[in-house]
């Protein structure tokens, strides 16, 4: 029995995003428009659609790295309060990012002078867990994802693409969160590594953690996702990327 299943965690209501490029004569480029979906605790929603359909932009908008022009992104906190991620204050977003909303980006972005173990342990230490415990849990997670122990003390920027991606996933999920956004978590992984990642995601779902992920492989979607949201030209008014108007 999944914990907290059927309680909504996020409700995206009609969000739209347009980029205005002031450096290019204020050209407007549509990111996505009128997107609706909701996710319950313990569920994984897969975002699908062709490249350029706006999948990553939606994840970034939920994380507030992108600002949306219209619509609401209602986040239901565990204390039953509801915040609109599209309009709440920056300080509120920072608080939510610390404990409630996590983001596994497509590519690892860290400083070159940090080891794999430190990179993974850091988000946990930020929540107040001791350094020793954090490093121990980080090593455990990296081993589970199939990273060789001899690599633990080396900068992950020297790793292969697939290894970097796994370090990035470990870094994104080590600290407990209620909602995790995953931007193509298995894109550059071989069959075996991908399997490890998917089984880890299944464990997270069992713990009641909700996820929104971008996936391309139908088999992986079938295995991991509870539902899918397909970005097509139908639920967006125009094909993508579209230049709406040039001022």
């Amino acid at each position, binding site marked *: 029995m999944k914990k907290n299943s059927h309680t909504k965690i996020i409700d995206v209501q009609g969000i739209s995003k347009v980029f205005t490029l002031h450096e290019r004569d204020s050209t407007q480029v549509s990111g996505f428009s009128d997107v609706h979906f909701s996710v319950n605790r313990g569920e994984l929603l897969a975002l699908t659609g062709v490249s350029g359909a706006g999948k990553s932009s939606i994840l970034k908008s939920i994380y507030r790295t992108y600002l949306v022009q219209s619509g609401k992104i209602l986040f239901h906190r565990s204390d039953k309060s509801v915040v609109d991620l599209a309009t709440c204050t920056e*300080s509120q977003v920072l608080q939510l990012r610390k404990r409630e909303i996590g983001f596994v980006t497509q590519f690892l972005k860290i400083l070159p002078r940090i080891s794999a173990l430190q990179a993974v342990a850091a988000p946990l230490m930020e929540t107040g867990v001791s350094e020793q415990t954090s490093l121990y849990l980080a090593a455990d997670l990296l081993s589970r994802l199939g990273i060789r122990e001899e690599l633990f003390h080396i900068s992950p920027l020297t790793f292969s693409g697939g290894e970097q991606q796994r370090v990035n996933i470990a870094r994104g999920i080590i600290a407990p969160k209620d909602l995790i956004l995953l931007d193509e978590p298995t894109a550059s992984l071989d069959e075996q590594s991908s399997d490890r990642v998917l089984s880890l995601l299944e464990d997270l779902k069992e713990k009641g953690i909700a996820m929104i992920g971008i996936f391309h492989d139908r088999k992986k979607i079938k295995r991991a996702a509870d539902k899918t949201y397909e970005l097509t030209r139908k639920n967006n008014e125009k094909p993508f990327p579209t230049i709406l108007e040039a001022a």
Partner: protein
Amino acid sequence: MLLEVQDVSKIYGASCGSCLELTGEEHGRAICPVCASVVAINSISLTTGKDEILGIVGESGSGKSTLLQLIYQDRIASSGKIFFNGRTDEQKQPLNILKAPPATVSHLRNKEMSMIYQNPHLGLNFLFSAGGNIAERIIGAGERRYEEIRKGALGLINRIEMETSRIDDYPEDFSGGQQQRIQIAKALSSSPKLLLLDEPTTGLDVSVQAKILDLIKELQQEMGFSMIIVSHDLGVINHLTDITVVMKHGTVVEYGLTDQILEDPQHPYTQLLVSSIL
């Protein structure tokens, strides 16, 4: 909120009364066309929460450093209010620290807020040793026992990864990077709630810059103070800050999460700035 800046302005020159309306980003100038006064800061409001790190970016002359100096009261604001750390006056009303009694202002400057300057001559007294500089601030924050002061200074010198045997050397005998480390030790010796940094690593070579920024970040996580950091280097801003303020012509043109400012900049000037990253 730890710090609330409300409608603060700084005008150099005898204001004609309409300087604020006639300058700023929408007019594309900081000099009043009527009276030729320079409006360095034009009605700026912003807040910083506990443990938050705010970055200020903008071109030279946009008023970044002036804003820090107004908060630290190195310069006197022409108008506006600043509230800090829930401080109240005798009537239990929120205290505007810009109008606070001198004793309160010096307590704020000596203990609760610290400033690290780009130019070490502004942050350090070159007639005192490294230890003396740190001791000066520990004494200013209220400690009077010699042993405690000496112990505190040695602890900090050790923390900034410097040989404690150098405690009695004078600032001019240290390298530029070491002088910035001593400024950091001095600034943090009073356990401030807010640390203001004005281009702390500009002019240092990149390896020293990286080590100093890492040290600042570690100390912030250990000690848990808020920071406002002025830099023209978006790399520094990206590395250190949570929230970024973009300034131009003495006004704030954009305020947002640092990743949003860098990845989805809204204002034309911010877009120009971000597109100029090497």
